[in-house]
């Protein structure tokens, strides 16, 4: 038994020693390059911005040149689809990298602890607005939803305000907004931002009005109250850059296949599925039940903003109405069955049901208003 256990440990030690030796004997160019952002933070930011801008402005000519080199007719369907893909895919990825990097740096100012301290002890109303806005900039992973929830309530953040934050944080985020901006334009991105915030603010406010504190699980109510503190901060610019790079690795590294898939679907189905395929069931003149149906279908689906974009792309391309599609997207991201099951540990059934009903109602309203206005 002893030998096979010992062996890998030895190999591990050995490997580390070799790595250390190379690092010491050659503090060479690659190491200097890696340290550059940390030691020359401002120059790095300026350089990165210039480089990014250059790449971005090269997109159109580069994609045209690439298609021209391929043995396809530019005017043909395939040629158009290819140019669209070769232009859109790098464009969206470039945009996403820039935004995620910037947000990673901004996020390092808004830790959950600081957000909690900002919200603690405020009365409802403006605090709901503040909570929904902080939801955009506070780093948030869906598995943290419950600890965050308890942490907020423990520090005396009102229940309704906590909900405003909890609704806005996953739904209105930089990835969703960038993708909407890159693929459908700033108008749709801004609309999504405004409506997402409105749903979070109003739903949180309504939940606060209903005075449902007694529907928290008993052990949550009995937790000792804590003083909200901001936690230790004061990172250097170099450390914030490192935070930005880390979130690019984590987020862009995770979502790029969805984005490429989504754009490929968007390009490919152009010629294959009839333009008004979805129009009869999800289009502007579809029956009234198409919006609730879209929301209902969205609830059991559980994915992040990037995962839902391919579906959104396909639906919109095939004549589905924008309001119906946005309602679907919001319900996929904001209302999910797995999240409800986790929330059940801290909320009694009645409060969960109220939460789901109010958010669903808000999303429905968004869908109908959009369809009516546009």
């Amino acid at each position, binding site marked *: 038994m002893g030998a096979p256990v010992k062996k890998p440990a030895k190999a*591990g030690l050995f490997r580390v020693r070799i790595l250390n030796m190379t690092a010491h004997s050659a503090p060479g160019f690659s190491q200097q390059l890696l340290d550059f952002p940390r030691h020359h933070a401002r120059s790095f930011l300026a350089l990165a911005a210039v480089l990014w801008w250059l790449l971005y402005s090269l997109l159109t000519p580069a994609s045209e040149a690439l298609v021209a080199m391929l043995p396809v007719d530019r005017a043909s369907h395939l040629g158009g689809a290819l140019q669209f893909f070769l232009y859109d895919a790098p464009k969206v990825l470039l945009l996403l990298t820039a935004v995620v990097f910037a947000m990673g740096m901004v996020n390092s100012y808004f*830790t*959950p602890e600081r957000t909690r301290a900002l919200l603690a002890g405020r009365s409802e109303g403006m605090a709901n607005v503040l909570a929904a806005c902080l939801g955009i900039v506070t780093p948030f992973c869906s*598995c943290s939803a419950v*600890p965050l929830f308890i*942490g907020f309530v423990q520090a005396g953040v009102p229940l309704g305000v906590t909900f405003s934050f909890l609704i806005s944080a996953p739904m209105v985020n930089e990835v969703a907004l960038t993708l909407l901006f890159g693929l459908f334009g700033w108008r749709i991105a801004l609309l999504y931002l405004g409506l997402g915030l409105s749903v979070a603010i109003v739903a949180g406010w309504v939940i606060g009005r209903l005075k449902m504190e007694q529907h928290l699980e008993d052990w949550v109510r009995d937790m000792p109250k*804590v003083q909200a503190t901001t936690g230790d901060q004061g990172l250097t610019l170099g450390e914030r850059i490192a935070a930005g790079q880390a979130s690019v690795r984590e987020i862009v590294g995770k979502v790029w296949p969805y984005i490429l898939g989504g754009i490929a679907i968007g390009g490919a189905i152009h010629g294959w599925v009839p333009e008004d395929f979805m129009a009869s069931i999800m289009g502007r003149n579809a029956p009234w039940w198409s919006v609730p149906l879209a929301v209902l279908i969205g609830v059991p689906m559980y994915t992040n903003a990037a995962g839902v974009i391919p579906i959104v792309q396909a639906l919109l391309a095939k004549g589905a109405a924008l309001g119906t599609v946005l309602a679907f997207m919001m319900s996929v991201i904001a209302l999910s069955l797995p999240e409800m099951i986790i929330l059940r540990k801290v909320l009694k059934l009645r409060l969960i049901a109220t939460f789901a009903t109010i958010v669903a109602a808000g999303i429905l309203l968004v869908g109908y208003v959009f369809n009516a206005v546009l």
Partner: protein
Amino acid sequence: MDIKVLGTGCANCKNTVALIEQAAKAKGVSITLSKVEELRDIMGYGVMSTPGVVIDGKVVHAGGVPSREKIESWLV
């Protein structure tokens, strides 16, 4: 050295456990690594965002997978 990873069992928490295991093995530091998955216990440490890391009863990290350098700085 007693290390606890706080988290309700999401992918990031599992990554954190794996990273600490790897780093400890590579450095040859002996540790006892355990996971705290019960919400009530996690909250008892005053941690709001998971995964969190507790070393010998003290919270050293919360909110996200810790970087390799950070983990290595604990293992001394």
